[in-house]
């Protein structure tokens, strides 16, 4: 049964593989484009993480619980649009931002209700909101970009504390918080159980429906925070914003070792996945690679990492001892 000659990449901790791959990538970029390895550049990379990274927290929760959410990009766009429509005409900036977050939360809860109550497959129900919410964003915005120039608001996206971008600090704080939730709380543990074996989780007396509702609500809310930060960086609410975000987010989460089949993954890996993808984008820009090749590169990186993950999975399955019957 036991097969020797397990490929080297499968022997060591997957997170270490990612960190090592990241180091190699940085060195290669550094050699070709010397400006890449400067501190300034890494601060720049840091300031671009939150747009993908905060939404990726929500996506990690969703994937671990065995689902998927395709609507995160549309939700992020809706958030900016709602905020820029409310401010300054109808509400002060704080209320406008709050309303925008509420909109994101509601879309997430709507996803959750469709999935848990109507039992619609998550892929389909969030594909529906992916399309519908983007449409709503266009309608609400009057199909145009609207200014969001309040200085305090713009600071959320562009400001820094002691040289560290505020958006990065916010993102890391959220990662730390949700890391603890996923690892040390019953709620987090139940998500792994629901994703790993829905049947066993239900028969253990876990109220799966309520857990999933909360998870999709959180994913909507966190994607909304992502959208808010992005529109603060742009100082505008754009109905076209964050198009393709769902791809970047799912790619980062999967890159970080979270299984699309559910029950497996952690935020630590997701964080590294986000950093790798954003650094890759940055490096390719510095090399003046056309954006089409950037898309190709992203796709290849995703294929390679998921391929390695599949090999590891198959290896683990083979390890299962024969059980007497």
């Amino acid at each position, binding site marked *: 049964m036991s097969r020797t000659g397990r490929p080297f990449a499968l022997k060591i901790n997957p997170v270490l593989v990612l960190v090592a791959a990241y180091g190699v990538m940085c060195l290669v970029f550094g050699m070709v484009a010397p400006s890449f390895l400067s501190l300034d550049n890494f601060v720049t990379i840091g300031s671009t993480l939150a747009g993908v990274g905060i939404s990726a927290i929500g996506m990690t929760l969703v994937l671990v619980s065995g689902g998927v959410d395709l609507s995160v990009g549309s939700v992020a766009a809706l958030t900016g649009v709602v905020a820029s429509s409310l401010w300054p005409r109808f509400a002060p900036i704080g209320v406008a931002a709050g309303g925008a977050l509420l909109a994101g939360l509601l879309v997430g809860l709507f996803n959750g209700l469709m999935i848990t109550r109507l039992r619609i497959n998550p892929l389909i129900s969030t594909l529906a909101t992916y399309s519908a919410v983007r449409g709503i964003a266009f309608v609400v915005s009057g199909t145009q970009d609207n200014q969001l120039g309040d200085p305090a608001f713009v600071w959320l996206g562009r400001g820094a504390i002691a040289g560290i971008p505020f958006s990065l600090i916010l993102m890391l704080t959220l990662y730390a918080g949700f890391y603890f939730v996923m690892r*040390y*709380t019953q709620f987090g543990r139940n998500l792994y159980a629901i994703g790993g074996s829905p049947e*066993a989780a239900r*028969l*253990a007396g876990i109220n799966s429906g309520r857990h999933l509702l909360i998870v999709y609500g959180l994913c909507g809310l966190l994607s909304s925070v992502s959208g808010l930060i992005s529109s603060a960086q742009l100082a505008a609410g754009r109905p076209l914003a964050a198009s393709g975000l769902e791809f970047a987010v799912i790619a980062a989460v999967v890159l970080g070792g979270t299984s699309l089949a559910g029950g497996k993954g952690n935020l630590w890996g997701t964080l590294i996945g986000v950093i790798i993808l954003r650094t890759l984008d940055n490096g390719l820009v510095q090399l003046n690679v056309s954006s089409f090749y950037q898309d190709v590169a992203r796709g290849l990186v995703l294929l390679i990492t998921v391929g390695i993950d599949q090999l590891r999975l198959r290896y683990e399955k083979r390890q*299962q001892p024969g059980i007497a019957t």
Partner: protein
Amino acid sequence: MNAEINIPLLQMQDIEKQFYGVTVLNKVSLDLQTGEVLALLGENGAGKSTLIKILNGDYQKDGGAILIDGKPVQINRPRDAAALGIHMIYQEQHYAPELSVAETLLLGKLPTRGIMVDWERAYAMARQHLNMLKVDLDPKKLMMNLSVVERQIVEVVKAISGKARIIVMDEPTAAFPPNEVALLFDSIRRLIEQKISIIYISHRLDEIFQIANRATVLRDGKLVGTRRIEPSLSQRDLVQMMVGHEVARGTSEQSLAARQTEAEPVLTVSGLTADGLFENIDLHVSPGEIVGIFGLLGAGHDAIINAIFGEIKVNRGQILIEGQPIGITSPHEARNQGIGLVPADRKVQGLVLDMDVRENVTLSNWSPLTRFGFFQNNREREHTRQWIDRLGIRMAGGMATKLRFLSGGNQQKVVLARWLEANVKVLMLNEPTWGVDVGARSDIYAQLEAMAAQGLAILMVSSDMDEVLSVSHRILTVYRGRLTGQFSRAEANRENLLHAAAGGAE
């Protein structure tokens, strides 16, 4: 009677089979005449399935010979069996729900005109096949719209249209609703008229007496004998052959009796009915009591505890916990009422295989282990350690070992530990030792007894007679969704249990 003199259609002579050094068939012989129904009887594990799997080429025999029309044949794989006209019909049905009856019958050989299917001809051919058994079924009907019985009959028709001479039916009526067995029997009688022979495996003695000409009985992998089914033979005679001599059993009745009579029942079920599964079930379990529900496969006994756990919708009846009527519609609510269930399929239903031992043990009950919703690692470890020691859970890498890597018995102990950790009042178990090795089995039995002694009420469903007899304080039998008997530990023996569970008349 003529057939008796002729050479039997099929002879299996001195068949031997071992699995991993354990003999499961020891020189078993049977013969089948042209146009007869031979019943093959025996308890679970007697070797019936192994024997027919050898006949079908699924397994290779280690010794003995198979003869057809008196000539030795080699059956190395199912295709060889099919070529000899041997056809199996299994209890679980495999069919494509979206295909019509005609498509099912003519699968792979639909008549065509050019590249188009010639539906006119296909339906005509299907009708012709159905007419052989005088079955009145619309060939255009989709398989998913047929009843279980009708689907089974389509299987039979398919077998004879494939020129089968021997049809083996393995518990064909297990999933049938009551009263629909007659339909299948009509078809069987028509098969007999056409000189097709049948090996009929069933636990249901009343069926055997209706349809079979002879019965061959196996016990513990050995041939007990073959009897002609005739008026002088009684169901009890056959049961006697199946179970052999009564095995003596140690009992310690007094303390038990005391425990049961004093206590008010924790769980009371009255008139519980789920249409099509079980009817009018009354039962109660007291603290400290282990009640076993025994039934043969397909009797519906497992549905009863699934219904109590909120997994199956009930149509009528009441469930009471400590005298209070409760409405349970989900496992979540059942757990909150203090009811736990150890499901039959632990890998799919019982455990999260990619989580470790500790996480699986605390899956159902966390409140004592958390503060402000966060796990207190030390307490969680301590509790898990306690169950590992107490139940003797063995694993290679400590409590951080993923459940995937535990053996069946140890996995089952983890499920057990989870409900004990959850501190339930009523623990229900469905086939608690399926696929569990002998050592772990006795650990589990000992633990159940110990937990009962501390006041847990245990309700166990099992198709394993030895298990029911050795663990239960009180035994109920179920046949076709109805309670057919109640036995105290002292009264119960293999014979009267099997008799009641097979729906046998007194």
